[in-house]
């Protein structure tokens, strides 16, 4: 999951308010969408469990690039859809902020990034599976696309907001954020490969969790 790791107080108050309001609007739309489509108790339990799994997986250190922590946001989107995925992204960000990972002032901004990744993962995976792509490449590409979109948003937010106390703005800041986005895209490829493996494993054990039925071999 792309995450704006700038420390607390790096955003001006107006930007904190702006991204928080936008995130609230996205969450309100997600709740509206869930209710419109018929919110059931199982959706709530499913969202909570997936959020717990995502938060727990984040605590495993992947020994790449000196250590990477993944939240598998795109996988969450693939499993529970964009609306519940946005809510899960918010909940995981709240729990992460309580752990000191992620600033409270960036809760709105990071929720927008997470929701983008979940939605991107879901829609690209659905489109590729619709074209009869195999699970591994479909999930890997969907994750890279979702995380890529999230990374671009992650880079854009500090450029729009500015960073308090840092005199670098405009084009110079854009160049710097572009470098950060490039690093994130590298991590997105790693997470894409991992998500591809995860989805392939889930498809082999419980294809119904992906909204699919088991393939019965014709003899």
């Amino acid at each position, binding site marked *: 999951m792309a995450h704006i790791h700038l*420390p607390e107080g790096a955003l001006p108050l107006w930007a904190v308010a702006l991204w928080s309001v936008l995130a609230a609007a996205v969450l309100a739309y997600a709740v509206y969408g869930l209710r419109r489509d018929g919110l059931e108790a199982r959706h709530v339990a*499913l969202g909570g*469990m997936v*959020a717990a799994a995502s938060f727990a997986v984040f605590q*495993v250190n992947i020994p790449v690039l000196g250590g990477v922590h993944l939240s598998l946001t795109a996988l969450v989107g693939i499993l529970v859809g964009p609306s519940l995925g946005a809510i899960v992204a918010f909940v995981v960000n709240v729990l992460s902020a309580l752990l000191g990972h992620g*600033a409270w002032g960036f809760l709105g901004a990071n929720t927008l990034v997470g929701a983008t990744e979940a939605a991107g993962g879901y829609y690209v995976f659905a489109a590729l599976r619709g074209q009869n792509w195999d699970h591994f490449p479909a999930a890997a590409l969907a994750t890279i696309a979702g995380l890529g979109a999230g990374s671009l948003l992650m880079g854009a937010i500090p450029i729009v907001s500015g960073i308090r106390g840092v005199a670098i703005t405009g084009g110079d800041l854009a160049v710097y954020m572009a470098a950060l986005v490039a690093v994130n895209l590298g991590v997105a490829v790693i997470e894409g490969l*991992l998500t591809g493996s995860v989805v392939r494993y889930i498809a082999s054990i419980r294809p119904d969790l992906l909204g699919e039925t088991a393939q019965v071999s014709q003899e």
Partner: protein
Amino acid sequence: MSELTSHVPDPRLLTTYAEQGTGPLHRINAWTKMAVLALAVVAVTIAEGLLTVTAIFVVVLAAYAAAGLPVRRLVAWYTLPFVFVTVIAGPLAFGIPGEPIVAVSHPFGELSITWEGATTYFTLLGRGLTVVTYSLAVWMTTRYADMVHVLGRSLPTPIDQVALFAYRFTFVILEVIEALLKATRARGGSLSENFWANRTLYGRIFGHTFIRALERSETLLKSMQARGYHGDLTVYSQVERPPARELVVVAVLTAAIGWYALTIRYGVIA
């Protein structure tokens, strides 16, 4: 021994401190602690200058230590915030003009870190660590039932329901992951050798974690529905209104931050 990474706080350890501790912060009302958390975020956001930020950080750190919370572990938990500030804000500090502390010549010119750049870096670090310290203190001094009550009352439905499920089952899922990692190690597997060789292993571990999570949610839902659950996870714990003395402290802190913002920070009042 935890199988998980040591530089991310283990929620189970934090909750153990919350349930078993009896320090001064444990006795403060959960709503008061949440209000002060919001004030701390605002304070470090509007605070100007290294001295002011350092003062806030020292006060929060002193409160953390006085509460009987583990200071040495806190240093380990600072690893991630420190790395993030260094990686993200560190290079920016090199671009801030001013009086150089150190300058290194290279084929494209000169790379220098200025006093102004160093001040910016430490100010950002101080802001980040202040809120990290206080957030961890809140978790480690607020009982599980009180935390659940605050979450349930603060968030709208169904977000509160998802958050309550997530918070409760984070502990269960952590144990699932630890068991999988232990089983991997017991069979001669390793996650710390190289990623590419182990990518399928990682995929199976994380995939199995999600499958277990989803299966648990199905089982849990059936058992809850058998007991009358219809989509509303009722919170029976109760956190009373904060006592008057705590409300006074929150009011004083709010007034102090407001005064600082209006006079020193924004100069609205001369």
